[in-house]
C-alpha cells in the first residue's frame, strides 16, 4: 500500500428520503486502529459499505492504499478484509471449510488455505468445532469465525462492523485481544462500534458520527483532555428533584449540578466527590435517593458533550456487555 490506508472525501449516500451519510471525510494512516463511533442509525454501516466497495457513494471519492476505488474497486478489495455486522458465513459448511473457502476467494492455494485455517481455528479457540457446521455454532463462536475468515488472506487493512455486539463478555474480550494483537503486527483497523468504552480502550483515534455527519475526529488522548481529572456523581431519585438546582449549588460550592433526567441528578467536580453529605442533604429534605454512583469522567461524557446526544442507549448496552 502507498499513501494513507483510507482516504475518503465528501462521501454522501441517500436512501430515498433518508440521508444516511451527509458528506464525510475520513483519513486513516497505515497501522492505525481507527474507531468509528456513533449511535444506531448514525450511518456507520453505510459508510463502511461504501469504503469496502459494497455500495457506491452518491458523491465523494475513496482511496484505499492509494488506489482510487471508483476506477479500480477490485484492486482495492485485495487489500481489505471485512467483518460485516451480521455473521454471514455459509451455514452448510464446517468452520474449517468456511475458512478455506474464504481464503480461496482471494486466490490462496490449497496448502496455504489449510495451514492458515488450522492456525486461525487454534488462535480463535475453535479447534473442537472446526468440523462442525457453521449453522450449529453459538453467536460468539460465529462472530469469532467471521473474524477469522476476514483475516484468512492476511489483509493489511481490516474493517469490522460492531464485532462485539450481542456476544458474551468472554468472547468479546477474546476479540478485543485479537484486535490488539493484529494492531501490534501493523494491520490497519477500521472499527465500527457503539460501545464507547471499547473504542476508548482499543483505538488510537476516534471519529464521532451522528446523523450522517462526523462531529469530531481526534486521538483518544486529546478527546479525553477536557474531562481529565474531572469526577461525576449520578444520583437516582424516586419521583424527581423538588429542590431547585440553585439551592444545591449554594449548599455545595464548587460542584456543578444538572438534571440529566427528571429523576436523575448529575454532579460534576474537579475534585473527588463525597456522596454521603449530598445524599444526607437530599434525604433531610424528604427526597428519596435510590442510588448514587461515583465515577471518573470518560469518553462517554465527551461523546455526550460533543454530539449533544444522550448516550443513554449506548451506555446501557455497554454496561451490560462490556468490562
Amino acid at each position, binding site marked *: 500500500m502507498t499513501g494513507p490506508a483510507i482516504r475518503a472525501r465528501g462521501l454522501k449516500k441517500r436512501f430515498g428520503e433518508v440521508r444516511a451519510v451527509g458528506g464525510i471525510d475520513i483519513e486513516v494512516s497505515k497501522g492505525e486502529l481507527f474507531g468509528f463511533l456513533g449511535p444506531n442509525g448514525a450511518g456507520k454501516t453505510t459508510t463502511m459499505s461504501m469504503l469496502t*466497495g459494497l455500495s457506491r457513494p452518491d458523491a465523494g471519492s475513496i482511496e484505499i492504499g492509494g488506489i482510487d476505488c471508483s476506477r479500480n474497486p477490485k484492486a482495492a478489495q485485495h487489500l481489505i478484509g471485512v467483518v460485516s455486522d451480521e455473521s454471514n458465513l455459509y451455514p452448510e459448511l464446517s468452520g474449517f471449510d468456511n475458512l478455506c473457502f474464504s481464503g480461496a476467494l482471494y486466490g490462496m492455494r490449497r496448502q496455504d488455505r489449510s495451514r492458515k485455517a488450522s492456525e486461525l481455528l487454534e488462535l480463535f479457540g475453535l479447534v473442537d468445532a472446526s468440523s462442525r457446521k457453521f449453522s450449529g455454532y453459538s453467536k460468539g463462536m460465529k462472530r469469532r469465525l467471521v473474524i477469522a475468515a476476514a483475516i484468512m488472506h492476511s489483509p493489511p487493512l481490516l474493517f469490522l462492523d460492531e464485532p462485539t455486539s450481542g456476544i458474551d463478555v468472554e468472547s468479546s474480550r477474546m476479540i478485543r485481544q485479537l484486535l490488539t494483537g493484529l494492531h501490534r503486527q501493523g494491520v490497519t483497523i477500521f472499527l465500527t462500534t457503539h460501545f464507547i468504552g471499547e473504542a476508548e480502550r482499543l483505538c488510537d483515534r476516534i471519529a464521532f458520527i451522528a446523523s450522517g455527519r462526523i462531529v469530531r475526529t481526534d486521538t483518544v488522548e486529546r478527546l479525553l483532555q477536557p474531562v481529565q481529572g474531572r469526577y461525576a456523581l449520578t444520583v437516582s431519585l424516586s419521583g424527581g428533584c423538588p429542590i431547585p438546582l440553585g439551592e444545591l449549588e449554594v449548599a455545595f460550592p464548587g460542584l456543578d449540578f444538572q438534571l440529566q433526567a427528571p429523576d436523575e441528578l448529575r454532579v460534576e467536580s474537579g475534585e473527588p466527590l463525597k456522596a454521603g453529605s449530598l445524599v444526607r442533604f437530599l434525604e433531610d429534605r424528604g427526597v428519596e435517593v435510590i442510588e448514587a454512583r461515583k465515577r471518573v469522567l470518560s469518553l462517554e461524557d465527551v461523546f455526550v458533550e460533543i454530539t449533544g446526544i444522550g448516550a443513554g442507549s449506548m451506555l446501557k448496552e455497554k454496561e451490560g456487555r462490556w468490562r
Partner: protein
Amino acid sequence: MKTWIAFWSIVRKDMKAYYLKPPNVSWGLLFPLAWTGMFLIRSGQDTHSLQSVLPGMIALSVLFGTSSMLAVAVTFEKKARAFDRLLLSPIPLVLLMLAKTSGAILFGMFNALVPVLLGFWFADLSGTDWSMVVPAVLLIAVVSTYLSLLLAILATEVFEVQTLSNFVRFPMIFLCGLFFPVTALPWFLQPLSFMLPLTYGVDILHAAIQGEQILPAALDFAALAGFCLLLFSLSLHSINRHWIG
C-alpha cells in the same frame, strides 16, 4: 490464476453445499422423474409418441432443475447476506456470476439425464442425433439459468422468485412447443412463442430426436446463443444497479 482458484472454489462449494438440498431434490430430480414416468405410462408402447414427448421432458427437467438450483445458490445466499462476501472479494463481477451460474447449469444438464435414461429404456432412440442433443441441452440450461438469474435479481424473497419464475415457467410449457408444436397454437400466440428462448431449444431437440423441426438448426442455435448473451448482460447490469446500490 488466482481468479481461477476463486472461480472453481465457488463452483465446487455450490455443488457440494446445494445439490442435495431438499428444494433441489424435489423440484430438480423428483419432478422430472414423476412427469416423465406419467407420460411414459400414458403413451404405453407407442414409441413414436414417446419420442414426441421426450424433447419436452428434457426441456422441462432442465428448466426446473436450473431454476431451483439458482434460487438456492443466489437468492438464498443473497437473503442471508453470504452473497456480500462474494461481492466483497476481488473476483471480477463477470467471473463471479459465471461461477455462481455454473453450478445451476451443470445441475440442469444432469437433470436432463433423468428423461434421457428413461427414454433409453422405453423408447427407440437409435435414430437420435446426440451431437445436437448435447449442445442443445447445454444451451437450454444456460439460457434458463440466466433467465432465472435475472428474475432472482429483480425479486428479493425466495418465494417471490419462485412465484415470479412460475409465471415464466408455466406459460413456457405451453408456448414453447414442449408437448405440441408451436404451429398448433392459435395464430395470435405464435409470435409470443418466438420471443421465448425455450422454443428454439425445443426445436433442436425435436429435430435431433424425431427429425421434425420448424426452423433450421443453425438459426435455433444462433437465437439461443443470442438470448444467453442478452440475458447475461442484462443480469450483470441489474446486479450493478440493484445489488451494489
